């Protein structure tokens, strides 16, 4: 299939897969490893009433924040929406639904969605609001809560490199939720910094096998905004 997976830009890659009320998974941790161009494509498409599953919801002015700001998001499923004042306003005004998940439960629910596991048990959240209304059962002397899978109509992910078959390789901590989400979308679109020829990626080092990727775009450039630039001074040279 190869070349047929490659699309010219976010707009063409998103054509035909968006509909109001749909559920979208969006990779990234904070602003690291975000599918910048596909988010911009969703903004341009105007698709609305979205349920968005993403660890965070962008940051003021960036990433998923832009969809929030454009009134396209009905509900967020996240673990942390701290760096986002707009989110607070909309939520407190009752204009946004929020389902908070522990970050690991969120990741495992997504992994379960891709792996055909409709439910699993975890210690995380037992005795907290997270476990309210969910079955709790003892295993190996400890209480565990049952969590269910998460799946999406569309997953948008950001990788470093792709080959024409859709095999993906991520870079450093920009990997985060991306490979898990790639498995859990009915349709998965990946954007990458570089599409490399078949044979360029070592088959032992593919993070996301191409079976999970329906469409690929190469982003023209990446902003990769840093949220907390933290540095140390260079040690003085010995005299």
């Amino acid at each position: 299939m190869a070349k047929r997976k490659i699309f010219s830009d976010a707009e063409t890659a998103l054509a035909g897969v968006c509909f109001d009320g749909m559920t979208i998974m969006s990779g990234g941790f904070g602003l690291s490893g975000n599918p910048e161009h596909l988010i911009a494509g969703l903004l341009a498409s105007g698709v609305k009433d979205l349920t968005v599953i993403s660890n965070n919801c962008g940051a003021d002015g960036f990433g998923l924040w832009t969809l929030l700001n454009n009134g396209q998001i009905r509900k967020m499923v996240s673990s942390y929406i701290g760096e986002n004042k707009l989110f607070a306003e909309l939520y407190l005004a009752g204009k946004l639904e929020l389902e908070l998940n522990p970050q690991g439960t969120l990741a495992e629910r997504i992994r379960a969605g891709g792996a055909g596991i409709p439910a699993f048990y975890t210690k995380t959240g037992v005795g907290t609001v997270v476990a309210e209304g969910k079955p709790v059962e003892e295993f190996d002397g400890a209480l565990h809560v049952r969590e269910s899978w998460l799946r999406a109509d569309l997953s948008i992910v950001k990788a470093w490199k792709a080959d024409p078959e859709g095999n993906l390789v991520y870079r450093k901590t920009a990997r985060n939720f991306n490979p898990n989400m790639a498995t859990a979308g009915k349709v998965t679109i990946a954007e990458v910094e570089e599409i490399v020829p078949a044979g360029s990626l070592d088959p032992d080092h593919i993070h996301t096998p191409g079976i999970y990727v329906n469409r690929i775009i190469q982003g023209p450039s990446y902003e990769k905004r840093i949220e907390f630039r933290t540095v140390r001074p260079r040690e003085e040279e010995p005299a």
Partner: protein
Amino acid sequence: MPWTREEMAERAALELKDGFYVNLGIGIPTLVANFVPSDIEVVLQSENGMLGIGPFPYDDDVDPDLINAGKQTVTALPTSSFFSSADSFAMIRGGHIDLAILGAMEVAANGDLANWTVPGKMIKGMGGAMDLVAGVQRVVVVMSHADKAGNPKIVESCSLPLTGIAVVDAIVSDYGRFTLDRNARSLRIDELADGIDLETVRAHTGITVLAG
């Protein structure tokens, strides 16, 4: 005189043992990395998908694809590894991390921990805190002993929404270093800050305090 943030971090570092895999929370816990004793080796895990966190980068080495769970830029070490969020929390949930050092708002006599939200204020979300306290082998809390009004934060029972039940093993506060005996529902003093006495600790603690 109560311990400073650095002094608290230095005391929390006493929890580190050679060969430990450790997750450090945001804030004072992050400072613990500066006080790892030189004769031991520990490996720091970051729940966004990294094992083996190096020091903060030099200004010209900053890489936006390389951040810790606090979204700060960091560096890698020669033996670092990167992995997905699901793999990262499998590592945490599976009990492979020896120690987590975290901040807290309240700790209860039985080890219950509240550190993620205050009702009525804006909800930020629990991030990875619930997974960490449920999954790691040992949880050490670093926090101010009392709130700004002087009310105890170590209490019979938490009033704030819980992060986890019966999870806290030890506490380092500005008053000293303490072990929580969850069965006996009491706090044992391991070390006190200079000028802080048993009376002061008891006056600002909501559960039984033992002299150690």
